[in-house]
């Protein structure tokens, strides 16, 4: 399968400490990849390197065959890399639909339009509606985000990324802080995403995350120590060592 995302020898240091120590990653089109590992393994830093929030000290990243590790987060987003944040990053004062329209506009040249009211741009409005349908938030479109429940905000966080029809979606702990019911709602959303979108997810909650994953990479101390299909990784003795200690 052709790779949508390829990383080779990625390194990131903060001061003296090496957070990501030579990671290589191959994500195929439409793949469902889970990255797990204990706290401090460097998962979020890796995600930030892939999204462009951080730039690597060494190594290269290719997205759809194009070298991107020096491109800004905004440029990568326009190429088709979408992401969510572990800490909610929403426009709290706006309504649900306004949030998603702003997101949809980010992928369109009309984001620079200084004249047309931003809710009158049909293309963005349609993309926003479609994204809200995918995360099952259409009935709440007119609600102010500040008045939404936490689980709804989590799904909105995902809708912002989906509104741009990304080719690759990076999910940073999408289940963090959710109740059991809310977790299953978010899982439903993720399981029903279009098959052609490749997804890389970082998650602590193994129960729900394993239902999603087809392939898993296990990280420890800035490296990938086990990688393979779901059953291979679960069966690998090294996985247990990482999670339970020797």
């Amino acid at each position, binding site marked *: 399968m052709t790779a949508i995302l390829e990383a080779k020898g990625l390194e990131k240091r903060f001061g003296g400490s090496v957070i990501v120590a030579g990671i290589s990653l191959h994500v195929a089109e439409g793949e469902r990849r889970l990255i797990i590992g204990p706290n401090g393994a460097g998962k979020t830093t890796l995600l930030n390197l892939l999204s462009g929030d951080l730039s690597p000290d060494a190594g290269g990243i290719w997205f759809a065959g194009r070298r991107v590790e020096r491109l800004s987060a905004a440029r990568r987003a*326009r190429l088709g890399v979408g992401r969510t944040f572990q800490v909610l990053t929403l426009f709290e004062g706006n309504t649900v639909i306004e949030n998603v329209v702003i997101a949809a506009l980010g992928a369109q040249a009309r*984001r620079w*339009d200084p004249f047309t009211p931003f809710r009158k741009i049909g293309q963005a409005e349609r993309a926003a509606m479609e994204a809200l349908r995918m995360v099952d938030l259409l009935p709440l479109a007119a609600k102010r985000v500040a008045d939404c429940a936490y689980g709804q905000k989590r799904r909105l966080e995902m809708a912002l990324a989906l509104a741009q029809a990304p080719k690759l979606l990076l999910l940073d702990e999408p289940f963090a802080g959710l109740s059991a019911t809310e977790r299953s709602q978010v899982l439903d959303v993720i399981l029903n995403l279009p098959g052609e979108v490749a997804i890389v997810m970082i998650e602590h909650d193994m129960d729900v995350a394993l239902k999603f994953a087809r392939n898993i990479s296990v990280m420890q101390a800035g490296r990938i120590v086990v990688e393979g299909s779901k059953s291979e990784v679960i069966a690998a003795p090294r996985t247990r060592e990482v999670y339970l200690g020797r």
Partner: protein
Amino acid sequence: MIRFAIVYMIVVAAVALGSPNDFYLSFATRVAYYGIYAMSLNLLVGEAGLMSLGHSTFFGIAAYCVAWLTTHGVGGWTAIAAALALGTAIGLATGAVAVRVAGASFMMITLAFAQVAWGLAYRWVGVTGGDNGITGIARPTLIAFDLEKQSHYFVFCALASLGAILVMDRLRASALGASIRAARDQPRRMSALGYHVWAIRLSAFVVASFFASVAGALDCLQQKFVSPATMSLLDATMVLLMVVIGGISSRFGPLVGVIVVLTFTEFSGQFVSRPRAALGALLLFVVLFMPAGVAPWLETLLVGIKRSLWRARPNAGAAR
């Protein structure tokens, strides 16, 4: 918006026809172009979240440009066009540096630019006349209207102000306006969505410096005099005060702030011996009792009155 324009025009006509003398017309003229000035600063401070201490730079540069050119044989309209171009170009150049940062650093950078501009106006005596400033500025003629006549100049400024307000209000509601606010609230998310946060902030800065230049050019032709005081820190904070008192980020708050502050500074001298101290007290009063500003306070007051009137009617019927 159409309703706003109609009310605005009625007020302008009433002032133009009803003013007993040029004193009130001059005052109303200043209200008109200070409206442009304060709205443009609100675009930065309120919408983009960029607290600028140097907005008077563009106001002053445009004023000096008009003053110098018209006193050196250049026609009034050409001078105004050149002033707008110069103010906007300097806005683009300084903004490109300043909007790389936000928060306190942005404030200090804009303050630095403002001090440099003020220093130039003060020391570059050959061009600016130094402390004496430039005098003897004449207003141009617009078709058949001699703008030297204060009533004509007032209507001209009021129309320019209405145009500027309509354009800025339209921008506020547009896609670019929405992204200016969004970049203020969640810059990192905006990058992840494909927006170039620096470019968005720069566009707000350039538009704001353009409209500050418009106000500066109109000020120069109103006062027929320009001095370094135009660009002083005191003047920069005065506009900021108008925005804060009127209501930061409220739609027409800055206009209300202009009316309140200019009326206060113009007429408080007759009643108190220390007008500036009184202005400080006014600010304190607003911050304590109308924390969102005068305009939002008025809005809630009006809504409350409407509601109580609405309720009074059916209750009166039921009591019978």
